[in-house]
């Protein structure tokens, strides 16, 4: 180990410190072995459990790998048949449409509420703001398996407290025996509510954090000019929040597009597949029907769509350099 003379040095520092009398090219030399052995362990794990599976996924998607193959190891190369099958399968297209509608509804709902709560928090006193923060953190911290079970219980026909509350409102009639999970629109609504409930805390807290950083002089100036609250919010707060909002929206798209647990635990994609999103569709194809080849093909398409959806985000990241 001791032979490594000056291992932990960035090149600019190497130049500045000028520790080596020999003139050598900045990127050469034995010290460059250090990053290699530092990266190897993580690289191995990522390689074996991430890179190899990505490659495998694509390979499996051009085979007819199924339950039989799991035991016999026999499968055949079928080219793009799986893809052809998917694209002619109306179930796939419906899942795609549902995924997009769900994602849009969830993102819009959670970002809108999150923005409202962040704005609200800036207007509260210390105590009330603390209360809201703790409430948000409790909702955020709930593991989604637990919250899905809680949701099932809240929306239980006959005894669910939400059914009771809605009945008390006397707007929707007697909701007592409504079985949310049996009704297409209602099960989607309750899942939507769950996702929004869990997504709002992160969004609200992040936006609030960004909002308190807006220089106060802008607000003072606007108020001196007699600007209304709405104008102030639109032309100052929103302008400053834009980068954060963009980031949050993209992250929300990624997360909501990938939602699985909550749907699986609340409706299993039912009734009649009306809450089957691409994730659920993949899972059912691959692990219920054990058509792993088909499932892999759906996964590849799902991933590509997600990459397209977030291409802007990735491009920005790569471009901005962010001293990567």
């Amino acid at each position, binding site marked *: 180990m001791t032979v490594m003379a000056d291992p*932990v040095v960035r090149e600019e520092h190497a130049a500045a410190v000028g520790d080596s009398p020999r003139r050598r090219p900045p990127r050469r030399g034995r010290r460059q072995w250090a990053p290699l052995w530092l990266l190897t362990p993580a690289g191995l*794990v990522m390689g074996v459990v991430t890179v190899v599976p990505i490659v495998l996924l694509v390979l499996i998607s051009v085979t007819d790998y199924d339950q039989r193959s799991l035991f016999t190891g026999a499968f055949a190369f079928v080219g793009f048949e799986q893809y052809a099958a998917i694209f002619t399968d109306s179930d796939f297209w419906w899942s795609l449409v549902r995924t997009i509608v769900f994602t849009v509804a969830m993102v819009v709902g959670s970002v809108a509420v999150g923005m409202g709560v962040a704005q609200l928090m800036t207007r509260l006193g210390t105590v009330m703001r603390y209360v809201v923060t703790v*409430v948000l953190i*409790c909702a955020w911290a709930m593991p*989604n398996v637990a919250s899905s079970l809680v949701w099932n*219980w809240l929306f239980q026909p006959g*005894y669910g407290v939400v059914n009771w509350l809605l009945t008390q409102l006397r707007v929707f009639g007697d909701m007592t025996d409504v079985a949310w999970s049996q009704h297409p629109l209602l099960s989607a609504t309750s899942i939507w509510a769950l996702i929004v409930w869990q997504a709002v805390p992160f969004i609200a807290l992040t936006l609030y*954090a960004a909002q308190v950083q807006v220089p106060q002089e802008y607000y003072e100036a606007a108020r*001196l000019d007699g600007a209304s609250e709405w104008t102030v919010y639109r032309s100052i707060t929103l302008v400053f929040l834009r980068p954060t909002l963009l980031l949050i929206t993209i992250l929300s798209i990624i997360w909501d597009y990938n939602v699985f647990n909550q749907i699986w635990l609340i409706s299993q994609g039912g009734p009649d597949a009306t809450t089957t999103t691409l994730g659920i569709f993949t899972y059912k194809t691959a692990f219920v029907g054990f058509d792993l080849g088909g499932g892999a093909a759906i996964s590849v398409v799902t991933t590509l769509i997600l990459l397209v959806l977030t291409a802007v985000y990735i491009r920005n990241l790569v471009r901005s350099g962010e001293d990567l």
Partner: protein
Amino acid sequence: MSTASLPSSAAAAVDETIGLDERMPRRATLPPGRRRRKRRWVSNLIAVVFSVVWIFPVYWMVNTAFKPRAEIMTPTPIFLPQHPSIDNFIVAVTQSNFLTDLRNSLIVVVATVVLSIVLGFFAAAALSRFRFRGRRTIMVFILVVQMLPGTALLIPTFLMFNSLNLLGTFFGLALAYVAAVLPFSIWVMRGFFIAIPMEIEEAAKMDGANTWVILTRVLFPLVGPGVIATSIFAFIAAWNDYLIAYTFMKDQAMYTLPVWLASFTTPAAGTDFGGQMAGSVLFSLPVIIFFLIIQRNLVAGMSAGAVKG
């Protein structure tokens, strides 16, 4: 860089601009002071309503968990247990495999946390303290990998683990979690590394410390907050995961807690909501406590990982 996006003391510097505001005689239907007070009052009211709605599911879980059986299934919900009892918790803990599955969860969680810290720390060191070819590519790869749908990698990993006989083993499960957590942990720790001035390690080097010593004795303590953030993230990821454990662990004796919880039923008449809610409380409690402890750093940590990302 990372410090720029953190919410910090800025909030404190604010607030005291009110004096200016109040001297302004504009649109004074109400005296400015009363206007403000009224506004504050409305905000507080909205905040109370919001808090009640948002905390309600958590409250209902706890409420149900402490109710005796007779008070759970009632036509009119009971909002506070008349005869609070811990029977549901006893049922949850004793009836099914709670303790076995708790142990399983802990094994996998500890393995995930330790591995992701060690591997993440070294990788973050390499990616922040050195410049080398391919570094940018690695960073972009790390970011993109984080977006992959969970269900996508499940299929190939399942098949691979199946042929490697890793399916249904704790090692395989922990490995899958480490791979899922690593991008985040590398990213976060790298942020902390960057904030450490180079002079510190140069000084250590002057004193004759080698790379290993510099890394473990000098830099590791300095990225402590990053290590804590990573371990909490890894803990939560491994503790909460349902999808991978549910797919990989088919032997009931190897279930982790989320799978236990989701399949929680008692012989007595189908779903036992009291027991289920008690189980949910037990399962959620560590995570909620964690979140509340680190709440001040939560947003900072998230933005270090995400906003920076």
